[in-house]
């Protein structure tokens, strides 16, 4: 065990255990286990309401995706929750600390801002040491924290190099290390994979999973990349024009966009038989021919395919086709991906 860990073990001071802190309950629901409790926060810039009535709760170790088109209010929401901007209305608690105590909240949160700048002449180690000192660590401890975090984000061997020599991906990982310098219970990551190559994206997502899984930190991940949300997030909040338009588990959100339609491809000479078979199938509401000459049909079900009976209806349609000895060249369910849900909910697809 390093001297750092030994020293840490001797310390008893814990600023975040201030008994005067209001416990998380602002959101009006059971605060037990909620490390983030946001209750109707709004942020206006003059007549422009960038965030309107945002409410949600998050538990330790959760990774919550914050989605929305450009200008939806994601970055403003993060700036309000990280106390960079005061809310115009509403309240929130982080780790039980009310938003009226921004200094104490900053001890609890780590943030990777979207447009984080770095002092290019400093080395990665100097950069992290500086921020560790700003969080109250003495110089010796700050050195050990910097070395440890650099190693944890895969920059151990580049710690003594100037940041100017870092790639975009390395800078982003350094930014995550900086966000972890105070061992936050809540981490906000604003577009952490923007501009990274696929390998860099994979490293960053693995790092995010580690942060939530091994540290038990709550991660609020703002991103444009829906695949990332699908891959690492347990829940999603979709913002549009400052308002929450959908919130729930990734599966819930997908279900909302799951359509009731399948595109079926059969040999053209079996077109009529396929139409008849599908009409007889249980749960198929409507059948049509898209391109009879090529054997493309469409079937609309009574239930969306992710709903309780949706799967049954799909199986029923496939069974009806096979029972009629119709050769199925393809059977494609339309929609049902997170991107479909996002486009459908935000109306971006229509634009």
């Amino acid at each position, binding site marked *: 065990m390093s001297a750092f860990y030994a020293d840490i073990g001797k310390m008893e001071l814990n600023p975040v255990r201030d008994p005067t802190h209001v416990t998380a309950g602002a959101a009006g629901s059971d605060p037990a286990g909620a490390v983030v409790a946001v209750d109707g926060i709004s942020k206006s810039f003059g007549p422009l309401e960038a965030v309107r009535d945002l409410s949600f709760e998050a538990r330790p170790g959760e990774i919550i995706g914050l989605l929305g088109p450009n200008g939806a209010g994601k970055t403003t929401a993060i700036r309000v929750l990280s*106390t960079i901007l005061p809310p115009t209305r509403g309240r929130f608690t982080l780790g039980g600390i009310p938003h009226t105590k921004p200094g104490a909240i900053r*001890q609890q949160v780590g*943030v990777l801002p979207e447009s984080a700048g770095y002092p290019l002449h400093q080395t990665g180690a100097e950069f992290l040491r500086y921020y560790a000192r*700003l969080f109250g660590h003495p110089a010796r401890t700050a050195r050990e924290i910097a070395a440890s975090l650099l190693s944890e984000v895969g920059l151990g061997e580049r710690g003594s190099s100037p940041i100017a020599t870092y790639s975009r991906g390395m800078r982003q990982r350094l930014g995550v290390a900086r966000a*972890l310098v105070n061992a936050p219970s809540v981490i906000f990551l604003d577009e952490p994979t923007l501009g990274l190559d696929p390998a860099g994206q994979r490293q960053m997502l693995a790092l995010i999973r580690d942060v939530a899984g091994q540290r038990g930190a709550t991660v609020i991940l703002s991103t444009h990349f829906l695949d990332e949300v699908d891959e690492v997030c347990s829940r999603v909040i979709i913002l549009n024009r400052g308002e929450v338009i959908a919130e729930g588990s990734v599966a819930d959100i997908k279900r909302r966009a799951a359509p009731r339609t399948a595109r079926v491809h059969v040999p053209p000479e079996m077109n009529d038989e396929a139409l008849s078979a599908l009409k007889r199938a249980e749960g198929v509401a409507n059948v049509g021919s898209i391109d009879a000459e090529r054997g493309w049909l469409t079937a609309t079900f009574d239930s969306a395919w992710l709903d309780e009976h949706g799967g049954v209806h799909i199986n029923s349609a496939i069974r009806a086709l096979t029972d009629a000895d119709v050769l199925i060249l393809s059977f494609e369910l339309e929609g049902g991906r997170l991107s479909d849900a996002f486009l459908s909910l935000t109306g971006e697809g229509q634009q």
Partner: protein
Amino acid sequence: MTSLTRSDSSLRSAATTPANGWLVVAQQELRDIWLSWRGPVIVFMFSLLLSLLTYLAATNKELNIIDQKDTINLVLQITLGIGVAVSLLFSADAVSGERETLETLLLTPVSRRQIAMGKLLAAVSVWPVLMLVAVPYVWALRAGPGLFANAVVAAFVVGSLLTAAFACLGMIVSTVSNSNRLSLAVSFFVFVVLLAPTRVPLSGWFGDLIVRVNPVTAGSRFLDKIIVSEHTWGQEATLLVAPILAAVIAAAAAAVLTGRLRLQGGMGG
């Protein structure tokens, strides 16, 4: 990439809101100024200028006509002007020039006022260094031990007051300005406007009023009287009123306004 294994609760326990956050910021900013090209280059250029001036004063027959006290006064007035101007520009650049890194600073528990104070201290560090560089030159030109000490102390006092006033002004402009270029331009313009009357002969009651109200002309006139006319401090104490007031008012305004330091410029909470 290694896995994350740190004991977060232990680490969080160790972290506190630093009472001396301003000192941490100041140390970093001082490193940025003095371990980069900025500070050393300014000192080097300043040394060259004073070397040239002193060499000419010591060897050039025409310049030798100028009284040694005038030469000392000239060296110290140049030191004062450059020291104040550089401190002003550094402070005007301190916030508006670092908007990209400001967000991460604002995310720390260090208060906004302490962040500004740390940056301000680093910005004014140029002044004592330039004064220190000027001392050997003044010693070389000295007209007598009494005048040397009096001149150096007077210049240091006046320079410190004016540096404090203008650095605070630069910090205020930098805090409220969205653009670094605007911040530097406005700050420098104010300095030039206040400096200009020192190059213009002012006479009569109105001229005297301008000299006494303008902290730059008042400070400059104070040095003239102490070094060249060899007046006592008591005789010219009223000339220190404007520099003292300027320093106090600018510091108070900076203390209030930098507490409202925002990610974007402008005023408000």
